[in-house]
């Protein structure tokens, strides 16, 4: 007989946001003192989660999907006890492990060995458990010969492998996994997903947040679609993923200003993004073979100066596979010198080589090796079939993502 491992009743989480001060992540005493004497501060309540009720049986592997800001990470953070809910109740039966970030607590000066122990313990293992699994972890990560080297000398791929290896050897009864598999190379991702699959076969319960629909479809029989903090759909993954992709078509307004799920120091920040056609009009759909312009509007934080900025947009297919990476360094269009306070970057693709379908993109900006801003899933564009080859012919929708300019020859031999 199955029994619920997780029982959630009317769980809600609200944040109070002060739109005027949203650029500051912390308060200063002075500000609060000033605000005490100012009435009518415009405060908005934002419901990150609203009345979530959910039962998850022991041994189930459930995928959680939804747009950025839909509340996926908030839900995991509440269940992992990182942040408390504002209302409602959740009861969890069993030992919990959470994996919201890989390599938490890694320190570049410490050796691989030292970091394995530290990170394992941070993830909730006992030291004795890490000792027991040490050899397995090292073999999984393939770092045997570098154990006593400080990890600052590891390649980034090695660091990610090591971090995953530790995480994959956690064995709690209930595991919460956030979008952590988005990094790392593909073969290693597969290895990790395989390990996760093995874990559920042993009767463990897993909640898995991902933007990679392929991974969700492969691993989770059941999925939950969150939208604006509410459960939009709950059922077999195939159906839920389908309806998510449908709704993704009527996508966002492109404003990035209030996105909280970003990485980087933030002196340079993208505030809006959109797609333009050859006439310079904002569009949501373009034709294959037509020019496409991806635009990112940015601002430089008050009192900061950013120079020599490097910008990259990565394009993804609707099922979450990265198709390409567009970067001003590749094309040699360097943005040397100081960046203006406000401005736009335009990435111009003269002849769009994408087949019919929905595409999404990420935005990345760095300056002098420092990550400034990195946002997943910022916008999307629909590609309708167009005259790419100049012959009036097109390829069918299911026949690949790309259109490639090509020629044919036929010659006789002998």
């Amino acid at each position, binding site marked *: 007989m199955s029994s619920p491992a997780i029982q959630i009743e009317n769980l809600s989480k609200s944040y109070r946001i002060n739109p005027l001060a949203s650029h500051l992540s912390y308060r200063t*005493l002075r500000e609060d003192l000033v605000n005490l004497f100012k009435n009518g501060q415009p405060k908005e309540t934002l419901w990150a989660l609203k009345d979530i009720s959910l039962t998850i049986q022991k041994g189930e592997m459930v995928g959680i999907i939804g747009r950025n800001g839909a509340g996926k990470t908030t839900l995991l953070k509440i269940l992992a006890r990182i942040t408390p*809910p504002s209302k409602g109740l959740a009861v969890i039966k069993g*030992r919990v492990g959470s994996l919201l970030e890989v390599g938490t607590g890694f*320190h570049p000066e410490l050796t691989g060995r*030292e970091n394995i122990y*530290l990170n394992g313990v941070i993830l*909730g293992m006992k*030291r004795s458990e890490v000792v027991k699994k040490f050899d397995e972890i090292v073999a999984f990560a393939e770092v045997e010969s570098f154990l006593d080297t400080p990890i600052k000398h590891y390649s980034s791929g090695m660091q990610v492998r090591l971090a995953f290896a530790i995480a994959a050897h956690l064995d709690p009864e209930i595991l919460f996994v956030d979008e952590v598999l988005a990094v790392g190379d593909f073969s290693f991702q597969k290895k990790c997903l395989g390990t996760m699959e093995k874990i559920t076969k042993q009767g463990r319960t897993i909640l898995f947040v991902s933007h990679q629909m392929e991974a969700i479809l492969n691993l989770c029989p059941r999925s939950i679609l969150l939208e604006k903090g509410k459960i939009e759909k709950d059922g077999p993954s195939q159906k839920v993923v389908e309806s998510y992709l449908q709704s993704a078509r009527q996508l966002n307004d492109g404003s990035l200003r209030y996105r909280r799920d970003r990485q980087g120091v933030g002196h340079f920040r993208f505030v809006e993004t959109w797609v333009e056609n050859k006439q310079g009009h904002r569009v949501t759909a373009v034709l294959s073979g037509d020019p496409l312009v991806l635009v990112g509007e940015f601002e430089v934080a008050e009192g900061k100066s950013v120079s020599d900025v490097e910008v990259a947009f990565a394009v993804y297919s609707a099922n979450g596979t990265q198709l390409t990476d567009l970067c001003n360094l590749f094309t040699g269009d360097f943005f040397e010198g100081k960046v203006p306070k406000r401005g736009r970057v335009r990435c111009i693709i003269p002849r769009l080589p994408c087949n019919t379908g929905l595409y999404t993109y990420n935005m990345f900006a760095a300056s002098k090796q420092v990550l400034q801003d990195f946002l997943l899933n910022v916008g999307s564009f629909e590609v309708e079939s167009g005259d790419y080859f100049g012959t009036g012919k097109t390829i069918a929708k299911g026949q690949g993502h790309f259109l490639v300019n090509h020629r044919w020859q036929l010659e006789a031999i002998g």
Partner: protein
Amino acid sequence: MQLETRIEPPKSWRAIPFKELWVFRDLFWMLIIRDTKLRYKQTLLGAIWVILQPLVTAILFAIVFGRLANLPSLNVPYIVFAFSGMVAWNFFSQAIQRASGSLVSHQSLISKNYCPRMLIPMAACGGVLVDFLVTFIVMGVLLWIYQIPLGWQLATLPLWFSITLVLVTGVSFWLSALNVFYRDFSHALPFMIQLWMYASPLAYSQEIIPTSWRGIYALNPLVGILDGFRWSLLNLSDFPLFSITLSFLISLFILLSGALAFQRLEQKFADII
């Protein structure tokens, strides 16, 4: 046996999670070991700094307050008097400096991971323990050089150390939690530590404080702690009962209030940090 966790909205007061702190004891030790290792790894002179800092300060006190101002020093050489205070003071000031920024510098541990957050400032204090031991050895050397006779009072050292630990942990809970909300505290801290130093009998001896003022003076819990350390290290005869009792009670109050305040504020850390 089935473990059951209930997740509910924040409460205004929560108990101190002794059981959980015990479950996460490995993390506590690992953080202490990491802090200690890192500190000695990254510096060329490592332990030398730990010795030099309090020693040079004690020498300065001996010159300025002993030689130039000619202040009394409990009938022992001024340098020994000054250093016997530095043993406790150095631990205290280093620990609260490290602890007050500890939550902010462990952001990802707080926003991406679950552990009883109290561990973080506690481990930061623990990271200074090795330094404390090193200064203690230097103290032993000084006592030997100046031929100060050792007495049975030495056996009471763990007691004074425990009071110091209680005070340090309490102050750390307060400062680290408030620092998450208001970074102002990190700016005010060096100034606060300096004030606290001059309000404690560290560079000078209590003998110069008028007797009628000593009651108020002893409200500073460090007064009793320094009295206790000196009493046992310097083989003094008068046991400072009043200041030590007061110091113990005040330190305990700071620890309890700090722990409760921390438990209350902790629930908002992940959203704010």
